[in-house]
């Protein structure tokens, strides 16, 4: 305890000094010391006021202790005096009058120094009168004694403070760093700041780089709620200033400062620091007090800065963690979505059936809670009808069903195709949901005014429609009954072939831009797949048709070949027959005398005749030439025919009769075919009378509506003019009931030889003429065949 001052001259002074020294040694508490010393000064000098001031390493001089009163009842005088003493930091002995404003009494100030360092001053004021030299010496001695003790005590306190401070900050730092979530970090920061500074209020605001403004982070204290809802932002006032300048602000007289905000009238002092991470501003950390008389010290500022550093690291870390998690989640979503698109691509290879493919697409879009949509439906374009036709819908009918289905699905992650197959089975089993039924019932005209879905197809672009949008009215309200839906086109080869509609009716989750992006990718794949399936189906149908046509063609070719063969054969056979038969007849004529040879010749001729008939029938059946009807005289035709069979009839002993009702009878018919039909009947009739008989041919006119008109083989409406009927009647054995039914069937014959084509040919001829052929058994025995020709009507001039 070296001392530069001389010892006091008076015994009282010395005594006092010893007392003080003892007291100083005894007292270690810094705060006691700062009170003891001014008190001792007051006693020693009988002063009215003594003030102890200390200067901290930062150069700020503060009053750390005082004793006495300058003037009782006038504390402002004391304050003024205190301030004067504080300002003087050297040895001074002045009368009060020396001060501007002039006061009575005297001032005495002595410096406190340790070594060469001046670290404070001790001052006194006495109203009664100025101080003298001896008193100055006494005070200087006191100061000399007190200085080293003060200094050591102060250092100890500082060290303790620092240690506490570091520990506190460390602890707070640990608490902050242990949290990974940004909100928790910010809460810990403000709690730590409040604790560290011993204040009630602390807040942290975050810097939004994109908007160049501070936004709320966290706050603690009685005004926290107000801060949270701060409408005017944080850019005014001291927080904004700190953000802009990146410099700390310590305001111990807040209301007098330029940063004071009218919203905070109670705030006394504030300390505000920027939160920086590697030169980047993350935000601003701020604390204030409403405690009157409370001041923030530079120590407080330093503490807050330390905390801000810790906070910066923790905030940055939390942000990175959050970003990483967000990316991971996004990646997961993207992966899942890609896997759905991939599954659809795979399904495209596997299932070419349109129904199955649609189900896979819709299932892929709706499966997966949180990723898929609640409901989806597909419509396909029908260009021919100009419609958008609903084909399938997938989605639960109610919220309960939705929860049940998704819970069941997520319990075990099934591959997409399995789920789709299960749903297919459900649908086929008749368990189609009402949403599916509604979807399948949709028919939307492809006009722009028909609504959003039509426009999606026509404009080939996606739409996202919310309640309140102009496009929402039609679909959203009417049959989707949702607040929001999206529709995307399925595009193939540059045009829309269908529309996919999705909504989140039960979860109400908004449809995001990412959702739309995913739908776009999916719709592209789906468009290609559906187009493929449709093309495939069309190809299959076309292939089937081609195969059918091919078969038909082959069959026709075979028939054609056959027909040609027949025609060729018939032709080839005819010529020889002409020669054989012709010469046989000539022989017959020449051999009239020799019965046997003549018979031979006749037999040959007759057989040839039969052959010719067979050829004729076959020819008619294999290639049918259209009719060339002409106006002809029926009588002439009949006579020609009778002439032809005349000889044969004579030989058989069959008498010929001709009965024409009205002469002449005109007829419109193909002359060749007419003769063909007649000849057939005549031949049959002759065959029915091998032993002779009567063959009668009659013709008559029959009016329309006559009895028997509807009978017989043939078709066609009854002509207005009525009919012309040609009858061939024989007196043969007649025809059995059993045989009658089959008479006109091709190839049916009771004869031992013959093709059985005669009567079917007759029927064909009559059908071609719009008439019919009838057969009746005569009660007197024999058969009657009648050919009904439509009456041609009034005479026309036609060329024969």
């Amino acid at each position, binding site marked *: 305890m070296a001392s530069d001052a001389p010892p006091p001259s008076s015994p009282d002074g010395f005594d006092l000094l010893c007392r003080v020294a003892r007291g100083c040694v005894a007292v270690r508490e810094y705060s006691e010391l700062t009170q003891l010393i001014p008190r001792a000064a007051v006693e020693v000098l009988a002063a009215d006021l003594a003030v102890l001031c200390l200067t901290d390493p930062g150069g700020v001089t503060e009053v750390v202790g005082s004793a006495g009163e300058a003037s009782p009842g006038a504390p402002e005088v004391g304050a003024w005096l205190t301030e004067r003493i504080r300002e003087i930091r050297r040895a001074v002995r002045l009368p009060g009058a020396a001060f501007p404003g002039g006061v009575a009494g005297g001032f005495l100030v002595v410096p406190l120094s340790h070594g060469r360092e001046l670290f404070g001053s001790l001052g006194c004021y006495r109203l009664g009168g100025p101080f003298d030299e001896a008193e100055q010496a006494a005070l200087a001695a006191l100061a000399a004694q007190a200085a080293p003790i003060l200094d050591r005590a102060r250092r100890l306190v500082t060290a303790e403070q620092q240690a506490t401070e570091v520990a506190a900050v460390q602890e707070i730092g640990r608490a902050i760093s242990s949290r990974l979530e940004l909100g928790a970090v910010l809460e810990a920061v403000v709690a730590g700041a409040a604790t560290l500074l011993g204040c009630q209020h602390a807040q942290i605001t975050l810097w939004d780089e994109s908007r160049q403004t501070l936004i709320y982070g966290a706050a603690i204290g009685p005004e926290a709620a107000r801060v949270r809802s701060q409408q005017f932002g944080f850019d005014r006032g001291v927080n904004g200033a700190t953000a802009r300048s990146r410099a700390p602000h310590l305001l111990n007289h807040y209301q007098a400062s330029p940063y004071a905000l009218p919203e905070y009238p109670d705030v006394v002092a504030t300390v505000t620091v920027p939160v920086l991470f590697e030169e980047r501003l993350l935000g601003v950390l701020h604390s204030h007090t409403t405690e009157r008389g409370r001041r923030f010290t530079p120590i407080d500022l330093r503490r807050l800065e330390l905390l801000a550093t810790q906070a910066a690291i923790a905030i940055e870390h939390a942000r990175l963690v959050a970003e990483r998690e967000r990316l991971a989640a996004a990646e997961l979503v993207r992966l899942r979505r890609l896997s759905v698109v991939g599954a659809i691509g795979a399904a495209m290879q596997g299932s070419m059936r349109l129904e199955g493919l649609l189900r896979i697409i819709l299932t892929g879009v709706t499966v997966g809670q949180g990723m898929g949509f609640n409901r989806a439906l597909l419509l396909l374009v029908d260009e021919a009808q100009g419609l958008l036709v609903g084909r399938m819908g997938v989605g639960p009918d109610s919220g309960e069903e939705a929860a049940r289905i998704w819970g069941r699905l997520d319990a075990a992650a099934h591959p997409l195709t399995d789920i789709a197959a299960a749903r297919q089975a459900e649908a086929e089993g008749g368990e189609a949901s009402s949403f599916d039924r509604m979807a399948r019932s949709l028919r939307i005209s492809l006009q722009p005014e028909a609504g959003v879905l039509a426009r999606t197809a026509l404009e080939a672009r996606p739409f996202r429609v919310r309640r309140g949008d102009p496009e929402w009215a039609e679909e959203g309200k009417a049959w989707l009954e949702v607040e929001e839906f999206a529709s995307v086109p399925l595009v193939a080869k540059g045009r829309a072939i269908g529309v996919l509609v999705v909504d989140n009716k039960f979860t109400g989750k908004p449809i995001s831009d990412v959702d739309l992006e995913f739908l776009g990718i999916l719709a592209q794949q789906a468009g290609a797949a559906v187009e493929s399936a449709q093309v495939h189906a069309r190809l299959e149908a076309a292939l089937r048709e081609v195969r059918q046509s091919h078969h038909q063609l082959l069959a026709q070719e075979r028939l054609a070949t056959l027909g040609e063969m027949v025609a060729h054969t018939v032709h080839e056979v005819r010529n020889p027959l002409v020669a054989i038969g012709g010469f046989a007849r000539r022989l017959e004529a020449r051999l009239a005398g020799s019965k046997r040879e003549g018979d031979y010749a006749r037999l040959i001729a007759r057989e040839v005749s039969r052959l*010719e008939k067979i050829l004729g029938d076959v020819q008619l059946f294999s290639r049918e030439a259209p009719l060339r009807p002409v106006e002809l005289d029926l009588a002439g035709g009949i006579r020609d025919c009778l002439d032809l069979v005349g000889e044969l009839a004579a030989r058989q002993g069959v008498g010929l009769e001709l009965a024409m009702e009205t002469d002449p009878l005109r007829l419109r018919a193909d002359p060749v075919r007419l003769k063909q039909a007649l000849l057939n009947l005549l031949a049959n009739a002759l065959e029915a009378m091998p032993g002779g008989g009567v063959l009668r041919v009659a013709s008559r006119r029959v009016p329309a509506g006559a009895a028997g008109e509807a009978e017989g083989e043939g078709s066609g409406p009854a002509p207005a003019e009525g009919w012309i009927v040609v009858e061939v009647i024989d007196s043969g054995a007649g025809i059995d009931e059993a045989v009658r039914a089959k008479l006109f069937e091709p190839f049916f014959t009771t004869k031992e030889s013959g093709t059985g084509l005669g009567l079917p040919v007759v029927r064909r001829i009559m059908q071609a003429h719009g008439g019919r052929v009838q057969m009746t058994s005569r009660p007197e025995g024999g058969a009657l065949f009648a050919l009904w020709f439509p009456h041609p009507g009034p005479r026309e001039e036609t060329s024969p």
Partner: protein
Amino acid sequence: MRRILVVDDEEAVRLLYQEELTDAGYEVSTAAGGAEALARIREKPPDLITIDLRMPGMDGIELLGRVRQLYRELPVIICTAYGELRRDFATWASDAYLTKSADLTELKIKVAELLGR
């Protein structure tokens, strides 16, 4: 006496027709093909011709055309084993279209008819 030219590539048929028609009281010449037929016609125009459709070289259709060019009024009977060409030729090209038969009755009737008019 009326003259008939029979055109057919089959010898047997020519012979038969000639015999039969001669018996019926006509003067009959024959030709085995279209070219020969035209030569015959130029030599001595007949009063009626019967033509077979299918013949080697110039077939009956072509011959028919040539004959019509030369002799519009000459009666022609198509006498053929073909049944299916009836629709094309019956009404415009010939005066009659008959299917060949061993029974020449219809032919004779037709000849008489055409020559009688």
